[in-house]
């Protein structure tokens, strides 16, 4: 067995990181993109984009929804990031299948006719429940990998004994040494973020992961639990007597006054037009970390304030703060950019860790003279994940512009197309096993797609950089610019790799001649990091 505490932690770090690494890379990268979920959705449905500040009144949308959804509805109000109104409700008596969604123009309340697309929601869902499987299974798999991530973070800290001495150290162009430096740098320099995001990520799914306390205290009644914990009163029944719905704008203003000026995030109306109507105004993410439910309830006919719900216990507040921290919806542009940067560092941490394993094994393999199945598999998965996923994500955005607007099942085809591209790149990685060529080609593809996206956007959308930049529409321009920048980065990686094609061959030859390798291949991570 492994000798010593640090060695066994190094072993644990290596294997927990490697086995969960590919899913973790996808979780990190799609999660990183999800910091811009509303912006991605707006970009992907740009024909419906409304420029300018949000409309002050919610009344037109509420009036329209009261006609469409007489049983009641929830409306997400437009804010500084989302310019349209998003509503959902359950068709009465239709059970699970009765879920309806609508996107509304805040000025008129009319339905917005945009192309059918999942938008940023796709990356967001993929981030925690994967795809092509039941969301529950996906969540369990992601949770398991997140737990491995937590294990890898803690064992990694133990393994890396020179955290402070190597804090600012990155030695480029030194083979394995550089990979270790890069891995340690992106891990330690954003360590608070990595620990926070992994732990709070597990907290978001904690009721699924550890439901036992809830099951004992509320046997067979999870709704009773959540109503009590999150301070939600059960909705009443309609009275059958018609009565007009109270104007909602004064209610929004009143709720905002109660919250000390913080704006409302959503409004939920039950039984509009009935004498038993109720209006719930829920606080938005602005001005607080927590996403804990904080609602002001009004009578839907008289407009009288009935109650303030939520803000129940310390435990619920802790949960809400951790959940809110994970989502980061409270963050303004600067803080959001910093979260995005740290999340990219997290993605790079997983990616460099995966590459590091392969680099070390390859040295061992060069010495032994043959490449084992395990190393081959890791190299294929590494390539298809680290270079293939960004390329597929860029392809997803390109498909959004290329698929015809009237295609049946269009939103699904965007997603299927994403997986077809990704699957093709996996095949390509398998065919290009063991060389740099595969990396050069996939990075080049990702770079081309990323850099090409603003061009494609200019050809297919009225909201391209030539319009959005002069108008200062950063909500849309941001996506073009960020994707192009990342594309340039990946394209640059392709060029660098292509230029240094000769380097590994020389190194392998040197090693074959018995010259001292940088690190004896038998050494594991912990010793090598010294």
């Amino acid at each position: 067995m492994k000798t010593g505490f640090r060695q066994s932690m190094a072993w644990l770090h290596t294997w927990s990181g490697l086995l969960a690494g590919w899913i973790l890379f996808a979780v990190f990268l799609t999660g990183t993109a999800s910091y811009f979920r509303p912006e991605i959705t707006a970009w992907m449905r740009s024909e419906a984009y409304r420029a300018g500040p949000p409309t002050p009144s919610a009344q037109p949308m509420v009036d329209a929804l009261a006609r469409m959804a007489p049983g009641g509805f929830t409306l997400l109000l437009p804010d500084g990031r989302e310019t349209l109104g998003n509503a959902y409700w359950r068709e009465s008596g239709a059970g699970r299948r009765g879920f309806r969604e609508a996107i509304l123009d805040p000025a008129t309340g009319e339905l917005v006719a945009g192309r059918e697309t999942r938008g940023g929601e796709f990356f967001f869902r993929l981030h925690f429940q994967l795809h092509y499987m039941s969301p529950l299974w996906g969540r369990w798999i992601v949770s398991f990998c997140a737990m491995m991530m937590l294990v890898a973070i803690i064992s990694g800290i133990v393994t890396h004994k020179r955290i402070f001495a190597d804090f600012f150290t990155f030695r480029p162009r030194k083979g394995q040494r550089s990979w270790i430096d890069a891995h340690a740098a992106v891990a330690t320099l954003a360590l608070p973020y990595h620990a926070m995001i992994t732990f709070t990520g597990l907290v978001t799914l904690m009721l699924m992961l550890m439901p036992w306390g809830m099951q004992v205290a509320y046997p067979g009644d999870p709704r009773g639990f959540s109503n009590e914990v999150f301070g939600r009163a059960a909705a009443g029944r309609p009275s059958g007597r018609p009565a007009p719905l109270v104007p909602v704008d004064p209610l929004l203003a009143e709720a905002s006054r109660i919250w000390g000026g913080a704006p409302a995030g959503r409004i939920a109306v039950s039984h509009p037009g009935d004498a038993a109507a109720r209006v719930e105004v829920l606080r938005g993410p602005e001005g607080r970390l927590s996403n804990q439910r904080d609602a002001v309830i009004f009578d839907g006919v008289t407009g009288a304030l009935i109650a303030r719900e939520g803000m129940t216990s310390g435990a619920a507040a802790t949960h809400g703060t951790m959940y809110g921290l994970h989502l980061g919806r409270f963050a303004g542009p600067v803080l959001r950019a910093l979260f995005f940067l740290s999340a990219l560092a997290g993605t790079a941490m997983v990616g460099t860790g995966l590459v590091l394993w392969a680099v070390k094994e390859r040295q061992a393999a060069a010495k032994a003279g043959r490449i084992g199945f395990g190393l081959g598999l890791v190299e294929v998965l590494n390539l298809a994940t680290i270079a293939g996923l960004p390329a597929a994500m860029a392809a997803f955005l390109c498909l959004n512009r290329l698929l015809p607007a009237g295609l049946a099942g269009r939103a699904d085809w965007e997603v299927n197309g994403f997986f077809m591209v990704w699957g093709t790149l996996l095949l390509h990685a398998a065919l290009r096993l063991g060389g740099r060529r595969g990396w050069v080609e996939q990075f080049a593809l990702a770079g081309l797609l990323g850099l090409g996206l603003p061009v494609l956007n200019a050809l297919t959308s009225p909201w391209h950089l030539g319009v959005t930049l002069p108008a200062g529409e950063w909500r849309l321009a941001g996506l073009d610019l960020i994707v192009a920048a990342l594309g340039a980065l990946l394209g640059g990686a392709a060029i660098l790799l292509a230029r240094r094609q000769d380097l590994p061959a020389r190194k392998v030859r040197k090693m074959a001649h018995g010259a001292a390798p940088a690190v004896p291949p038998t050494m594991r991570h912990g010793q090598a990091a010294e």
Partner: protein
Amino acid sequence: MTTLALALAYAGFTGLCLAMERHHEQVFGTRRVPPMRGSLFRGAGWLLLVISLLVSVLGAGPVLGILLWAGLLTAAALLLALLLAFTPRAAAAVALSPFPVALLLML
């Protein structure tokens, strides 16, 4: 304010880093750090990091300020590590950035 906090965090990290032999050599050419200079760099480094925290908190409030500071520390340290690897002297020179940033803020 955010820019100033970022510049201060960068300068603070540069101070800490110049007190270390490896980085002292990269910038000044000698591996041995004179003891006085080492303590000076280390002290100034920590002080600048604390000032950066104060600036963040003053600008964004205690809750968001601390989060902002943590994010700025990461950004500053990543930038410093990257610059240090390729142009160590320029990396050290960028540490003087709080002066022009503060001047701009005063104008």
